[in-house]
């Protein structure tokens, strides 16, 4: 295999997601998983009988059995919210090397309607186990995941002078995109003052610095570039994909102002043969405002420490120089817990010209950058329209 064996060897040929402005879905569990897989296959002009590979953030054989797939390629990678970017990376490699022909990846979670099903509010408790987090972090009462991100924000502010106003601008721009997305959970415009006036959750992060809790599901279908041409929709090529993980517990993160995206981003860009200047739309995981800011720096859109000043002029919003999270993001569109799938769906739709009122003019290159755990595992995927192949 050559150094760039992944480049345009595989393509996303079908996507689907299930979300609702109410934040709740009627279906859940395997039934919801089956629905988005079915719709993604229909979107691709394929059937379940064509599928010989599956990516799932957990035990793949169980869901494969339910769906009636006998996969010859399985990926059960679970790195939190970035799982789906890593799935694309692995599926592209599998397809390029002949391990699989048609691979389906899926995700479904319904934390919001689960509350009603359980008849009790709040998350299920997690019993102490062998995880070192229980021994070395849990006794201190850090709320997770927000507390870990808040620690990173505090460090970034102390070292680089980043302000709450600058972080708030990221939430404001996400909401401006969401106002053009009729399926977004929150569509009413907000201001920097609104973000700063929202209740402090874990300093320095306010409620409006945080992503949503909604139901949601999504799926993608990939096949070879050769086969992609005979299918229903214009292919969206995987030009590059890379990942990196540098810790699990926040205490073990080497530098709270630098994520593993500083490794995965440049690696994916190199595979794709692009620079940041080539990126027409950036779908960047915004679990919290600080998350998106760190991604901008680590992917190289600005220098380390300059993220705050970089976002100040609203360049991430509609009409800006770097359109980011055009669906409204995890901050305003949807966030069922592991949002990485929706980065890929919107990136694909933008490159196909299917994003409605918020559609950019002829984007050719999209980047989906997923973040999982507590800034732990990053997955960067570069996607391209036909002309980039």
């Amino acid at each position, binding site marked *: 295999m050559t150094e760039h064996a992944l480049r345009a060897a595989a393509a996303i040929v079908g996507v689907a997601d299930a979300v609702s402005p109410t934040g709740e879905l009627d279906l859940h569990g395997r039934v919801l998983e089956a629905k988005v897989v079915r719709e993604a296959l229909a979107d691709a002009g394929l059937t379940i009988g064509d599928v010989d590979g599956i990516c799932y953030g957990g035990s793949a054989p169980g869901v494969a059995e339910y769906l009636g797939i006998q996969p010859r390629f399985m990926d059960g990678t679970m790195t939190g919210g970035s799982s789906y970017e890593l799935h694309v990376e692995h599926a592209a490699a599998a397809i390029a090397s002949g391990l699989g022909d048609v691979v389906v990846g899926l995700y479904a979670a319904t934390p919001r309607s689960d509350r009603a099903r359980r008849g009790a509010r709040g998350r299920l408790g997690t019993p*102490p186990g*062998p995880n*070192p987090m*229980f*021994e*070395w*972090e*849990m*006794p*201190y*009462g*850090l*709320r*997770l995941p927000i*507390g870990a991100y*808040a*620690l*990173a*924000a*505090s*460090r970034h*502010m*102390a*070292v680089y002078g980043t302000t709450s106003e600058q972080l708030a601008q990221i939430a404001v721009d996400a909401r401006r995109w969401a106002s053009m997305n009729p399926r977004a959970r929150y569509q009413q415009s907000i201001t920097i003052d609104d973000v700063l006036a929202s*209740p*402090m*959750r*874990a*300093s*320095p*992060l306010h409620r409006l610095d945080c992503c949503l809790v909604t139901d949601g599901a999504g799926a993608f279908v990939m096949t070879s570039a050769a086969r992609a041409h005979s299918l229903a929709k214009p292919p969206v090529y995987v030009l590059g994909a890379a990942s990196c993980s540098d810790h699990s*517990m*926040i*205490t*073990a993160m080497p530098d*709270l102002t630098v994520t593993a995206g500083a490794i995965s981003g440049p690696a994916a860009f190199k595979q794709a043969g692009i620079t940041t200047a080539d990126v027409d739309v950036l779908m960047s995981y915004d679990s919290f405002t600080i998350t998106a800011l760190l991604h901008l720096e680590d992917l190289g859109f600005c220098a380390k420490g300059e993220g705050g000043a970089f976002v100040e002029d609203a360049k991430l919003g509609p009409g800006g120089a770097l359109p980011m999270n055009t669906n409204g993001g995890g901050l305003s569109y949807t966030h069922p817990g592991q949002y990485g799938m929706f980065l890929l769906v919107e990136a694909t739709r933008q490159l196909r010209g299917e994003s409605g009122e918020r559609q950019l003019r002829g984007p050719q290159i999209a980047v989906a950058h997923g973040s999982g755990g507590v800034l732990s595992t990053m997955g960067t995927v570069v996607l391209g329209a036909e002309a980039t192949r």
Partner: protein
Amino acid sequence: MSPLLEPPASDEVAPFWDATRRGKLVLPWCRSCERPFWYPRATCPRCLGDTVEWRQARGDGTVYAVSVQHQPGPGRDAADGPYAVALIDLDEGVRVMGNVLACAAADVHVGMSVRVTWQALSDGRQLLQFAPRE
């Protein structure tokens, strides 16, 4: 303060927890690369060395990052009010988590000098905590 979610004591770090009963902070040092590491375990995360020596730490450190929790986290009660969770760089060169006690949560800041203090657990062990250094 409401009852803490008490930490389990894993077998491989018994010397750490035993020392806390006497109010002493010991750190695991790798005999191969001669450096301390955190979190305590039987294998050095730098060189995979498996000979660990427990050496007493001075107990001084600096706040690396801090977040005041305005909603109660695991094992905490809303009635206790906001509290500071910090990452502390010990002078020996390891980074640990702790609460900064004995001062207003809002006063805890990055760069603040702190020193070790202890909080009793139900089984005689003590939890590593921090307070401002005068």
